């Protein structure tokens, strides 16, 4: 799967590429809100007003990508929760109006497949269209679907729009805070990994890739990926090493690690276990930039492609001179869902 193009709206200035060029935003917040561009030229105002944040950010990324690329043969998305704000607005109405007469807008906008459906509608695309909601492996599931699609169409050139979206609302922030996923005290994202408490900070955004099975003029490729929803702490080393073996690689072939460390002392030991397998390696801790959310591995993949193309180099720790050609991403959520993604030039 070759990556021809990509774009992201994130808590960093990815929308105008200044993040890639060294403009790193220091965040001193509990919530790392996405920096959204003006949508004026992209989406008519009447439509924009009705859109929830997930759909809005998703359209804000997909429309520019679709505008500068040929029509894709499929649209595949991953999102753990979709338009959660609309969902809980609707829920609040149900409870507060005791199931009275409600307006359907929030309900229709809240369905996780609303984004992929809107993209199909606005770009008049009747092709393959699936949304995966596999929690913190939703992007990995979308990746798997994309790889199946290309396997099935090996004989002809095919293109896919592959993406992920997650939004913060007050409500899901509340729920995850009650679930002890977020820190109660505030430290800046520069010091996130030195924190000695549980939880992390909440991020959001949409990341999308324009994929093709034709390697010509590609920026990078998704070489392989692997997921697990059931792994014990003493199995993680074997999980990683077997993945490398399956790709005929050894630890020394990896030029740069992208790790999902998020400053949560209760689960960061999983990342340390993986780091130990590689010794001193150039590493990027991508959650320092965008925080924790369930489809953040899509952002990590985005960052990997930038690094492979000589951008965002300033984020690499422990590797001032490296010019990476093979990048391994390891991410987990709650130490329950684990993901490995291998991206190469």
């Amino acid at each position: 799967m070759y990556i021809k193009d990509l774009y992201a709206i994130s808590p960093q200035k990815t929308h105008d590429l200044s993040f890639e060029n060294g403009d790193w935003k220091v965040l001193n917040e509990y919530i790392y809100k996405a920096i959204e561009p003006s949508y004026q030229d992209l989406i008519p105002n009447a439509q924009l007003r009705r859109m929830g944040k997930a759909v809005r950010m998703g359209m804000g990324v997909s429309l520019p990508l679709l505008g500068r690329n040929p029509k894709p043969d499929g649209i595949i998305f991953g999102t753990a929760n979709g338009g959660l704000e609309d969902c809980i607005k609707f829920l609040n109405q149900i409870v507060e109006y005791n199931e009275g007469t409600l307006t359907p807008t929030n309900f229709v906008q809240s369905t996780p497949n609303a984004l992929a459906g809107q993209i199909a509608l606005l770009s008049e695309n009747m092709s393959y269209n699936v949304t995966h909601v596999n929690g913190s492996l939703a992007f990995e599931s979308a990746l798997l679907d994309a790889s199946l699609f290309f396997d099935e169409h090996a004989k002809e050139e095919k293109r896919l729009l592959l993406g992920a979206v997650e939004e913060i609302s007050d409500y899901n922030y509340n729920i995850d805070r009650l679930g002890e996923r977020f820190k109660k005290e505030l430290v800046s994202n520069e010091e996130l990994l030195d924190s000695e408490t549980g939880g992390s900070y909440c991020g959001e955004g949409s990341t999308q890739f324009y994929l093709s099975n034709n390697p010509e003029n590609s920026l990078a490729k998704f070489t392989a990926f692997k997921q697990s929803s059931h792994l014990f702490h003493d199995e993680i080393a074997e999980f990683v090493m077997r993945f490398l073996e399956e790709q005929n690689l050894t630890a020394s072939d990896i030029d740069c690690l992208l790790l999902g460390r998020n400053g949560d002392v209760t689960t960061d030991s999983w990342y340390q276990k993986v780091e130990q397998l590689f010794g001193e390696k150039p590493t990027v801790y991508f959650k320092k930039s965008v925080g924790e959310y369930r489809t953040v591995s899509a952002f990590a993949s985005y960052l990997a492609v930038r690094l492979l193309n000589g951008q965002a180099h300033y984020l690499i720790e422990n590797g001032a001179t490296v010019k990476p050609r093979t990048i391994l991403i390891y991410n987990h959520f709650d130490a329950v869902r684990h993901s490995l993604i291998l991206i190469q030039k």
Partner: protein
Amino acid sequence: MTEIVVTGMGAISSIGLTIAENLYSLKHEISGIKKAKHFKSHYAGSLVFGEIDQSDESLLEELALKKGHGFTRTTLIAMKAFREAVSHAQLSPEDIASTRTAFISSSTVGGMCYTDDLYHDANMQGSPSEYVKNYEGSDHALQIVRFYGMKGITDVVNTACSSSANAIAIGARLLETGKVDRVIAGGSDCLAKFTVNGFNSLRILSEEPCKPFDTHREGLSLGEAAAYVVLERKADVSDPGKIQAVFSGFGICNDAFHPSATSDDARGPRMAMELALKRANLSPENIQYINAHGTGTPNNDLTESFAFSKLFKNVPAYSSTKSYVGHTLAAAGVLEAIYSILSIQNQEVYPSLRVEEPIADFSFQPTLRYTPEVAITHVLSNSFGFGGNCTSLIFSACI
């Protein structure tokens, strides 16, 4: 091309807690759509539902699970149907846990089925409920993964009302490409204030039990169900007696017309059926029965009938088994896939119940009574959803 077969089935719905009970009701035209006993809602008195006649407490007890661990109704019914499917396919605990076994599920309401608990947690009222970590759409699947110690690929799909039909298609593709050796695919959705009020706000719920394909149909009835099938490559199945049916093909596309309605020319439904036929290497005249999407809304039944009229020179027998169980949302695709397989196995058509006056615009009409002794080799099963998602599946007799 690799032949994919169904080797196990499990289902729980308003017309039965097992496959055998579902079959009995289908044969005897017993509808499950009536006043709700367990579901608490403002609409419990005024609307009818396809409710599973088993309480959460009884499900917990039957599954030997403890209360207080975040098992939602979506999870409980999913676990029951999953258990029946893997047992039917004679999968060992090692088979289920294997890295070569994939689990592809689906749900729309997911873990958000207890609307009041979610309201309190989302608005930080009082101490966290037992479900505070279980609201995700994928929670039921993760609970099953934990329970069985599953090491393989997981996925959860949400394409609204076509979700589990897509789960089956994705499962088959994983087998075709050799990524896994067996797949458990399906979905689960339980009745929830969230969906009932959602569909009510769209004004597409019928006050009386739904009557798909009737001229005077007034909308859909919501139901709840969970169902799973086990898929394997035919070449890998050592005991041919295990094979329930062949999964011959699927078509997936988007209507690209409207967030919550089908296009007048039904281009999406037509395309999905055409793609499924093409993939199955069949032509329209090979289909003997269509298990229609048939929700009972004015829009769906008209446009779906229109699609039949364009695709088939002679429209085969068709019916909507949603007239038995209501619209079970994410679970509808797999439940109707199972009903389609039962049709093939028993060579009979389960009717569209309660149709008094079939839609007059067309020269064909649905099957109105239980019809045994019908030669059925290939069945087309349709599932269309909000967001324009259209999926058609084809199941065939194993020859």
